[in-house]
């Protein structure tokens, strides 16, 4: 039996990963997200695909005060947490966050503070258990600041660094912290973007995540894996080149 809690369960990557865990058999889910109807549909889908159980907890993950309680509820409902996937995020309107600090802070609340708080809460639960896979979806956008999406990238950079550090800290406690850095993924979040050969499907990214969790991997996971090499080059690129990305 695998006990799984997913925050931002309606996200395309989260859904794809959940389907793969459900199909593997023996999975019990707690699904957290804003859209109650969509969560219910996803729960039914996962049960049809072989999940033992899928319960839903509608919640706005921007409400930071409630996050500790949500983690405790999930732990209690499942009787322990084997896999926690933190997948929520909003692509901010760059013009809006440039024009207004309030808009920026609101977005950082969802993309940075909320996942960070969950990582701390879940890390504590897993440390107490002495095991667990804590997966947080970051992004290659967090590796370098780009002119077109530094707000999104900034939030993801925080998650990447936090996750990497927490992973090193919790390794000896038997907890694997996996920082997932997807490249371009064809999801509803990016529906308006023109797609090219660098784009991957949510299924591919989910496949990388599920494989890494099965192998109890921690650390940074580029998804698909070849983004590691692209980002290695980008990491050393001078500013005038990054400006053109």
């Amino acid at each position: 039996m695998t006990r799984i809690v997913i925050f931002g369960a309606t996200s395309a990557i989260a859904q794809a990963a959940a389907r793969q865990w459900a199909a593997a058999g023996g999975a019990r889910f707690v699904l957290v997200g804003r859209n109650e109807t969509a969560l219910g549909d996803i729960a039914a889908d996962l049960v049809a695909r072989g999940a033992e159980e899928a319960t839903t907890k509608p919640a706005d993950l921007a409400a930071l005060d409630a996050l500790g309680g949500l983690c405790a509820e999930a732990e209690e409902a499942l009787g322990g947490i084997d896999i926690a996937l933190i997948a929520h995020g909003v692509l901010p309107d760059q013009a809006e966050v440039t024009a207004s600090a309030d808009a920026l802070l609101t977005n950082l609340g969802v993309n940075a503070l909320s996942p960070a708080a969950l990582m701390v809460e879940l890390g504590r639960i897993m440390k107490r258990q002495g095991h667990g896979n804590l997966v947080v979806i970051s992004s290659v956008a967090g590796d370098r600041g780009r002119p077109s999406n530094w707000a999104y990238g900034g939030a993801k950079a925080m998650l990447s660094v936090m996750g990497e550090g927490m992973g090193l800290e919790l390794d000896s406690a038997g907890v694997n912290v996996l920082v997932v850095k997807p490249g371009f993924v064809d999801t509803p979040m990016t529906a308006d973007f023109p797609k090219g050969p660098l784009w991957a499907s949510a299924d591919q990214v989910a496949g990388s995540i599920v494989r890494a969790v099965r192998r109890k991997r921690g650390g940074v996971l580029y998804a698909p894996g070849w983004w590691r090499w692209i980002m290695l080059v980008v990491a050393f690129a001078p500013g005038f080149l990054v400006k053109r990305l």
Partner: protein
Amino acid sequence: MPMLDDGPVLARGNGRSYGDVCLNDEGTLLTTRALDKFVLFDAEAGELVCEPGVLLSDILDLVVPKGWFLPVVPGTRLVTVGGAIANDVHGKNHHRFGTFGTNVLDFRLLRSDGTALTCSRDENAELFAATIGGLGLTGLIAEARLKLRPIASSYLEGEQFRFDTLDEFFALSEASEASHEYTAAWIDCLAEGDRLGRGHFMRANHAADGGLDPAARSLPLAVPLTPPLSLVNRASLRVFNTLYYERQRAHEVSRRWHFDPYLFPLDSIANWNRLYGPKGFLQYQCVVPGNEARAASAELLKEISRSGQGSPLVVFKMFGDVASPGLLSFPMKGATLALDFPLLGERTFELLDRLDAIVRQAGGRLYPAKDARMSAEMFEKGYPALDRFMKQIDPVFGSGFQRRVMGRAR
């Protein structure tokens, strides 16, 4: 359902139809692939409820390990449930299980007036009948409940052997109808004279043992790019067909297949359509009814072999008399011939017009899912329930096909 102001709307699944039934150049396409959730899989009763964007492939992956199968599958598993209903697709076992729509229990249909109607044989029956094979014109299917059929194994057992004449094909079909669930033939479309209609006959049943592996998929081959000219032409076709025909043994050979390569041979070659070059190809599938089947088939094959056009991909089979509820359902008891024609310009269209004349004379019809060029008249003659169907069309829905062949009454 959100409604838009810019022209007619049309649901589109995985886009595997060969013509304009899945196109809507004057309006908006509602792409349904993201509606890919299962709602319920009852592994006791063998029923599945799912959204319209679910691929048949996903269904088989789910239900086969539990000992169930879709009663009817077309030649590719990469089509959506919505598309399978809208085109009322059929397979090699039509004489046993009818069409895809024959095995649909009910569905929920969203109409542009904001209503969501449950449609079945008993409830909103006329809309149910219009939607099955209704080419997406009656509204958007929100979810559908499908009947599954039990299997003991994911393997098929049967025979494959060659036949030398059209008469032999009809005799084999008749003899195999009761004994075999899946029957179909490949025909050498260039063979003439006393070899006319020669080909390979394939027939199979689900095996009783062998395990329930969902798929025997190896790495799919792929056609990586479009060659500048069609690789299917008169010369290559003659060589291929002769070698392929001779390769098969003349006498019965018992064989065993996983269902995947047997039922979905084309899915193992990704982007096979590129073989036809930048101009592409036209599919043609017709059915000619029972008593006319033999004579009309012979005429069709003569016309094709005389033209030298055609492709290695030819399927010939007999439909049975299992009735579909669909008003515009394509199959009828008789012989159906399906093949590709590399597009050679006007002479391809002229050939297809000559084939149309034979089909019409015999009281047959063409398959909308594979059509890009039939006349409105040809369509009207072939589908006598068209007037009944037109009354059920959603006023906001439309398609390229609908404007081309059903334009008159809108």
